[in-house]
């Protein structure tokens, strides 16, 4: 069974200060000076793939893990970590320009990669990227591959060589289903899926492996039918009155007397 996890490193924008939020001429916020992290859903996807691999080993089902990102060289440290975590191939496709808001292009590159370079049984993606937040790539990749798609998975278990058991979020809770491969799986809010750390030994033994880099010469891009035309920074300021006091008890009392009492007694609240 071959599994491909697609991910995108994202700048940790919670590190930006209020004054860093500026839109530049290319309709982007400059985030080049903050650390790149794995997107939160993609981190879950990678860890779920590793858990699936552990469980498949136990059942004697052979499984190969691969990882792919369409991104600049900033993603290299993450790719090295994935090599150290024993992903068999780690591939980076260098885009010509920033594809942050072009999920159709990203999905098209992913599906061309799978068809022309390395056929897979399962493609695992996050349900949404942290910065682009398009929430479209897995769905488009499924359509382009002509594969079915399970969305918002929270747990993936092996069943046999052709099937997986997938638990996923639905409108009224969860559904647990036996799913036929090939398929696309998008990962949702999955508890306890922080990415494990490779051992130092594995870093030395596997982490130095070359990363395969492909260029866009091998890929064709479809026309975009959704064009970004503007960005507007959202501000969330309120009064921010800080309650002073000598002890937590005193602060709680002021909070109650001055702010909570009028509301909790059922009086109309004005903002």
């Amino acid at each position, binding site marked *: 069974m071959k599994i491909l996890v697609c991910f995108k490193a994202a700048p940790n*924008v*919670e590190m*930006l200060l209020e004054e860093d*939020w500026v839109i530049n001429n290319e309709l982007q*916020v400059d985030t080049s000076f903050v650390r790149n992290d794995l997107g939160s859903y993609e981190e*879950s996807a990678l860890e779920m793939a590793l858990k699936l691999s552990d469980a498949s080993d136990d059942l004697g089902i052979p499984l190969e893990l691969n990882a792919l990102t369409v991104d600049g060289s900033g993603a290299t440290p993450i790719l090295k970590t994935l090599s150290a975590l024993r992903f068999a191939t780690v591939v980076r496709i260098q885009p010509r320009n920033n594809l942050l*808001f072009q999920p159709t292009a990203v999905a098209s590159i992913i599906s061309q990669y799978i068809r022309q370079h390395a056929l897979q049984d399962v493609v695992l993606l996050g349900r949404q990227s942290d*910065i*682009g*937040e398009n*929430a*479209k790539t897995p*769905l488009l990749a499924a359509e382009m591959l002509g594969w*079915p*798609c*399970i969305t918002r998975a929270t747990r993936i278990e092996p069943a046999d060589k052709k099937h997986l058991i*997938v638990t996923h*979020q*639905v*409108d*009224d*809770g*969860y*559904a*647990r*289903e036996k799913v*036929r491969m090939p398929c696309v799986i998008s990962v949702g*809010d999955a*508890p*306890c*899926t922080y990415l494990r750390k490779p051992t130092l030994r594995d870093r030395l033994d596997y982490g130095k492996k070359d990363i395969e880099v492909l260029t866009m010469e091998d890929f064709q891009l479809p026309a975009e*039918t*959704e*064009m*970004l*035309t*503007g*960005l*507007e*920074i*959202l501000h*969330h300021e*309120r*009064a*921010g*009155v*800080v*309650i002073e006091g000598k002890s*937590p*008890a005193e602060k*709680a*009392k002021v*909070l*109650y007397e001055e702010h*909570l009492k009028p*509301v*909790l007694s*059922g009086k109309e*609240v004005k*903002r």
Partner: protein
Amino acid sequence: MKFKCILNGWAPNVKAQAEELNSFMNSFLGNGANPASTILFYANHEDRHSLPGLVPTECAEFVRIDRCQPETILEALQRIEDKEDTSLYLFPAGFAGAELAVRWAFRQKGSSLVQVEQVAPREGCLIAKKKAYADHVLAAFRLTRQPFCISPANGSVDRLPIAARDNLQIIEHDLTGLREDAFARDSQRIPAEQAKDLGAGKFLVVGGRGLGSKEHVKQLKDVAAAMGAEFGISRPVALNAWGPMQWLIGVSGTIARPDVCIAAGVSGAAAFYAGIEKSKIIIAINSDPQARIIKAADVAIIDDYKTVMDELLKILKPIKPAI
């Protein structure tokens, strides 16, 4: 611009979905100015009688299918919509709606956008806005190819009750038996741990990663209950399995609209803040004076959340808030 609403009568929250679409239509697509109809999918004969009350438009098509998988709904849509000239499809905000919007647009060679906050038709295109950059930015997109397929952001609009209609025009379809070869089988439903509508409470306490452990989450939930408040959590708390996902507040969970919200041990990331931003009063309790939530709150206490909440409970418990 001719448009259609798509509703999934299977979802237990279909009424809320219908009311949200009704409100979205009213806000952005002109009250009755554009010809509109609704396609409503349902499963059981017993549900048929309640369907008219869910239709926010003057015409409706009721489609009976026997699997609520997106694969089946998409195929059913293809059967009944093949030669249609609809310019815009409006899907609900739930999980399935966003998914169907993207895939239906792809199949119809149209364009799509999900988690949409606002739309405006302009010169044959559609301008639609949604959040990006971890919810710090509102991004505008021009959709150029029809049909435009849209799904609103969770909680982006209020709910607008559906007016009863005597003259509803109905077309019925029976498409049961589609897709016998479903790729997903042996489906077991695991109902949500808490069905209660977190968004509707008047007094909400939310706990964040600052709570530090599963045990502390439980303690704060008990304190909230003793104060007469609902209890929600931030995403890291849910991801650490310190509390169930159904308690999640924020863009990925519930968008709450309480009178009072106490946010304890949360930093105030934009994706979380969207879930409490509609509160009338936000009170932050955080030990870090630099935390983003302080400026985004009406009132803040810089201290350990636990001691403050315990003290507050001493005051509130004998009072029993009226809201």
